């Protein structure tokens, strides 16, 4: 597979047996998406073929004809019509639609079989959670006929722990019925939990293909990026109190030079809090540098030195058609000369190890991790923040880029910036934050990094949520 002069995937042979679950790993730009795109007909291979059950799929197969042949893809963000009901979505643009009276029964059956039996058929897809939408997408695949191959592209990137667990159960069940599964993810523990065989791509080549038995996260990380050192210890130099937020349970304190986590449920109130601090939603009771802090709009927050790196980089962050340079300097455009911008952009690329076309190219032509680096750079480099808020900064980002981002954040904290990270991932909080607040139902608990950090985060969250249900 070739994109212009760049060979995206080179001479990879991947065969998957019925009932096998294969984990596909690799950095951003390593070729995972390209491989999936070729397998689903979204991109045509320059050379090579696609074989299914011993039969060669004709060249120039469209996504539609490949889906018809029994290959189902589940994307991180399911392609469903959010303005239509579940039932309507399930039969949208399908060749063989059952008779009207039969549809509800077949739909029920499909939803039950993917473990979404509790969903109402007339519910609008737009009102569902991401996990539920993925299940609806999966049910669509189930209705398309025999699911011979299931391709999952980062299915758990935005899911909470319970939803992930349910999805994994479902994957195992489908595999036991003979479906071949290819599971693409950046979350190494997920891969290890559910996959039997692991394939690692690097630079468009296959570098590892072996059984998952006996593999550990550390071993996988090493295969992915041999040079990365994972447990570099870091002691923050904590300065004075910068931002103080008051809620029912008392104060949340964020000091200069610290990286503090806000942990909670998927789409939980930790995200509402950072959004509110950035002038989106009702301003919380807070002080900044000892003075009352109130931001009504993002513009207002930015003026006071509070920057937000949003979680959804495509929707909330980047202007897709605009060049990488323009995207990086958009909020600060008036403050710099052009020549300064170009020079500074070059330094940013070196510092964050950005890979991709040059800065005049639209940001859309960069890979996910590199887009995330641009977004981070925007809020960090041209004008240094006093408080940097980040929502899931390493979501959907490969392990190498994760490490780059972590180092960048620590270096930034060392300059005296107060950093706040909102996340629903224990590993994200554990790897980035030395101190964290667990938030649920308007309450919070404070935790410090020490043994069993991730486990304590989860347990505290559980305590907070169950305490709410049965007030003692």
């Amino acid at each position, binding site marked *: 597979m070739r994109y212009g002069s760049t060979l995206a995937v080179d001479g990879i042979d991947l065969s998957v047996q019925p009932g096998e679950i294969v984990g596909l790993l690799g950095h951003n730009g390593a070729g995972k998406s390209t491989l999936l795109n070729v397998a689903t007909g979204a991109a045509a291979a320059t050379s090579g073929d696609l074989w299914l059950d011993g039969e060669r799929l004709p060249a120039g197969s469209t996504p539609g004809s490949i889906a018809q042949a029994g290959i189902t893809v589940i994307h991180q963000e399911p392609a469903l019509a959010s303005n239509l009901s579940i039932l309507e979505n399930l039969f949208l643009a399908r060749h063989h639609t059952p008779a009207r009276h039969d549809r509800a029964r077949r739909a029920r059956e499909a939803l039950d079989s993917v473990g979404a039996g509790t969903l109402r058929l007339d519910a609008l897809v737009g009102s569902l959670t991401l996990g539920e939408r993925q299940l609806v997408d999966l049910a669509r695949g189930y209705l398309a006929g025999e699911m011979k191959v299931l391709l999952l592209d980062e299915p758990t990137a935005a899911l909470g722990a319970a939803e992930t667990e349910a999805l994994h159960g479902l994957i195992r069940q489908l595999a036991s019925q003979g479906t071949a599964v290819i599971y693409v993810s950046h979350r190494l523990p997920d891969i290890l939990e559910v996959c039997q065989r692991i394939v690692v791509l690097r630079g468009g080549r296959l570098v590892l293909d072996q059984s998952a038995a006996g593999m550990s996260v550390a071993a996988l990380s090493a295969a992915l990026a041999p040079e990365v050192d994972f447990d570099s210890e870091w002691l923050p130099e904590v300065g004075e109190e910068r931002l103080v937020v008051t809620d029912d349970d008392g104060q949340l304190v964020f000091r200069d030079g610290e990286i503090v986590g806000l942990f909670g449920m998927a789409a939980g109130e930790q995200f509402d809090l950072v959004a509110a601090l950035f002038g989106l939603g009702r301003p919380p009771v807070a002080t900044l540098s000892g003075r009352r802090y109130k931001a009504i709009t993002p513009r207002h927050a930015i003026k006071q030195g509070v920057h937000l790196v949003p979680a959804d980089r495509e929707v909330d962050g980047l202007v897709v058609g605009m060049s990488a340079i323009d995207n990086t300097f958009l909020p600060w455009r008036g403050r710099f000369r052009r020549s300064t911008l170009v020079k500074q952009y070059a330094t940013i690329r070196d510092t964050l190890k950005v*890979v991709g076309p040059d800065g005049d190219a*639209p940001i859309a032509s960069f890979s996910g991790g590199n887009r995330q680096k641009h977004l981070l750079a925007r809020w960090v480099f041209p004008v240094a923040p006093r408080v940097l808020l980040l929502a899931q900064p390493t979501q959907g980002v490969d392990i190498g880029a994760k490490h780059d981002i972590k180092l960048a954040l620590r270096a930034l904290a060392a300059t005296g910036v107060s950093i706040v990270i909102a996340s629903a991932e224990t590993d994200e909080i554990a790897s980035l934050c030395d101190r964290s607040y667990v938030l649920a139902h308007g309450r919070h608990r404070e935790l410090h990094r020490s043994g069993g950090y991730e486990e304590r985060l989860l347990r505290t969250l559980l305590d907070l949520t169950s305490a709410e249900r049965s007030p003692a």
Partner: protein
Amino acid sequence: MNRIKIVLAQNGTFIALIVMIAFFASMNPRFLSLANGQTILLQIAELGIIALPLAFLIMAGTLDLSVGSVASLSAVVSAMVMMEFNSTVLGFIAAILVGAITGALNGLLIAYLKLNPLVITLGFLSVWGGLALFLTQGSTLVGFPDTFKQIGTASIGPVPLQIIILAAGVLFAWYILNRNSLGRNVLAIGGNRRAAHLMGVRVPGTVFSLFVATGVCAAISGTLLAAKLQSAPPTVGNGMEIQALTVVLLGGVALEGGMGRITGVVSGLLFVGVLRNGLVIMGVSQFLQTILIGATLVIAVLLDGSVQRLVKKSWNTVETKKPGQPGQPEQPNQPEQPKQPALVGQ
């Protein structure tokens, strides 16, 4: 190679313009004369003054179809004020007020109340056009003060005033789009409204100001047209909105917003001007001209999508200048601390 493709795709109108000029020149040698060049520029000056702000509106992802009627109404109102007070200055002030008020109304409804720009401005196209007819009872106003009449034929050196105003407008628009943060903000709003808001761009405020600016420009355009004609017909701006839209879309401004270049808009403007002039020189019927200009709009929209796609696709394959070699999109990560702190706060 791909860079060349991008440049070609972005300047397709310019290439078509050159081809068209060569064609008309071969049909009639008189076409290439300096005098005819000046005629063309004089014919498109008022159109250009409307097309430039409209280009910004479309880049911001919105639209104003009421400009033609605003031009008519302003011409009529300024003519009435001028005749009443015998003052050219007051007439111009009245015209600009009309433009600002109509623009502000559009802006209020579209930027702040988030109503559909197509429907709102189409409605106002009818309202202001009707008002212009109502105020004059359909008759053309004549009898301007002499100073105003002189504006219509004034020139600085050998260059007519209208052409100078157009040139100044083009330079100003280019400066705003490429050298002023407002330009990037406009493109950001058109490209991703929510992201623009999250970056601290005043989204409704910016769009509102664009509407006011468009109204004012339409008013100036209509008044200049009246000065040129030495009369103010209530239909003086009729069809200007379609022509301006044609210019903007021919100029490669994406209808969906977020993309556009002033050089493109100028190419589109010259294209329309040359086409109109060439057709007249060749003696093509007035009615056929209208058909051809309308057809250019349809073709421009047809090409718009495919050009944007081509540009996007070509960028994906542009060779990387600096880090990363082909086939090795990821570089190994070095665990050393980045040199970043030095950058912060620069």
